[in-house]
C-alpha cells in the first residue's frame, strides 16, 4: 500500500460520509452547501495528491504537505466562529421567545379569569332578577 492510495481512501471515505449525511437532509441549507464543498475538496485532493505539491510550489511553501493542514485549520476556525455567531443569534431568539411566552401566558390567564368572572356576574344578576320577583327584600350588593 502506498501513500497515494491511503490518502485517496481517506478522502473518499470523508466525502462519502459527508454526502451520506447531507443526503439524509439533517442539515439546513447553507450548512449543506459548506459540507458539500468540503466533500468535493476532499475528493479532489485524494484524486490528485500532486496538486498539493504544485500549490505548495506556487505559494512558496517549503514543505508542501503542511499547506492543506494550514488551510484546513483556518477553515475550521472560521467555521467555529460562524457557529458561535449562529448560536448567539439562536440564544437571543430563544430568550425573547421565552419572555414572550411568559407574557402571553399571563395575558391568557387574565383573559380567562375576566371571562369567568363575567359569566359569574351575568349568571348572578339574572338569578337575582328572578328571585327579586318572589322576595322583594333580597340582599343586594354582594355580587
Amino acid at each position, binding site marked *: 500500500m502506498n501513500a497515494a492510495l491511503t490518502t485517496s481512501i481517506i478522502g473518499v471515505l470523508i466525502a462519502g460520509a459527508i454526502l451520506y449525511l447531507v443526503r439524509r437532509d439533517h442539515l439546513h441549507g447553507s450548512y449543506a452547501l459548506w459540507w458539500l464543498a468540503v466533500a468535493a475538496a476532499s475528493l479532489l485532493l485524494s484524486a490528485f495528491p500532486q496538486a498539493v505539491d504544485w500549490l505548495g510550489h506556487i505559494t512558496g511553501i517549503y514543505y508542501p504537505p503542511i499547506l492543506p493542514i494550514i488551510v484546513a485549520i483556518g477553515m475550521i476556525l472560521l467555521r467555529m466562529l460562524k457557529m458561535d455567531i449562529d448560536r*448567539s443569534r439562536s*440564544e*437571543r431568539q430563544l*430568550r*425573547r421567545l*421565552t*419572555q*414572550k*411566552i*411568559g*407574557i402571553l*401566558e*399571563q395575558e391568557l390567564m*387574565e383573559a380567562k379569569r375576566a371571562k369567568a368572572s363575567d359569566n359569574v356576574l351575568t349568571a348572578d344578576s339574572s338569578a337575582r332578577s328572578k328571585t327579586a320577583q318572589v322576595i322583594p327584600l333580597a340582599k343586594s350588593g354582594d355580587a
Partner: protein
Amino acid sequence: MRQQGGSTHRLLTVIPARNESATVGEIVRRVRSVVGGEVLVVNDASTDDTSAQARQAGATVIDLPYGLGAWGAAQTGLRYAKRHRFRAALTLDADGQHHPEELPVLLDGWRRSGANVAIGTFPQRLSLAKRVAWRYFQLLTGIGVQDFTSGLRVYDGHAIRALASRKASLLDYQDLGVLMLLRKKGLRLHEVPTVMSPRRNGGSRVFSSWPMVARYMLHTTVLCFAQFGWRWRAPVRAGARA
C-alpha cells in the same frame, strides 16, 4: 390590578424573583401600599411557591418556563411595560435588600432630576472588592455611576423602549451592559442615594467567590471592549426615537 393606574402616571413595578417565597409576598404588599399601581413579579423559574405567594399578595405574575437570570427576568417586565404602554417602570429585588419605603425617595429624585433613568444606590454597602471593580469600570467606560449593579431603578418610556429591544436581550447582567446601551441611546442616568439592607438570603450572586468575580470582570471587560468607541460618540437627543 391595573385599575389604579390612571393615564397620568402609569407606573409598573417589576420585581424579578427566583426562589424568594420567604420575602416576595411581603415586598409586593409593601410596594402596593407605598407606591400603588400595578406590581409585576417575574418568576424566573422558581422551584418554590414564589409565584403563588406573589399572586396572593396581589401582584400580576409572569412565570418564565426556564431561568433567564436576573436581567432576563427584568427585561421580561420591561417588555410587558412596553406592551401595555406604561409611562415608567420601577425595578427592585425580591430578597428584601431594597425597602419599598425608599421608593418615593427614588421616584422623587428621578422626577426632580429630569433624567431618563434613576438608580437607587447605597454607597456604604460596597465592599473594597466592589469599589475597586467599579473604579476600574468607571475608567474603562467613562460612566460615572457609583454602584453599577443596583437593581433598584426607575426607567422612563424611552429607557423602557431601549431596553425592551432585541439589542438588550443578549446581556447577561443588568449592570454595565444595560448602562452602556442606555448611554448609547443618549439617555441620562441619575443616582439617588437610598437606604438598603444587606441581603437576607446569602450574599451577592456575582460577588460570591473569587472565580465568579474573575469571570464577571472578564465578561464585563469584553463587553466594554465590544462597545468601545461609544463614549466619544455625540449623544443623541433624549427625545429621539431609538
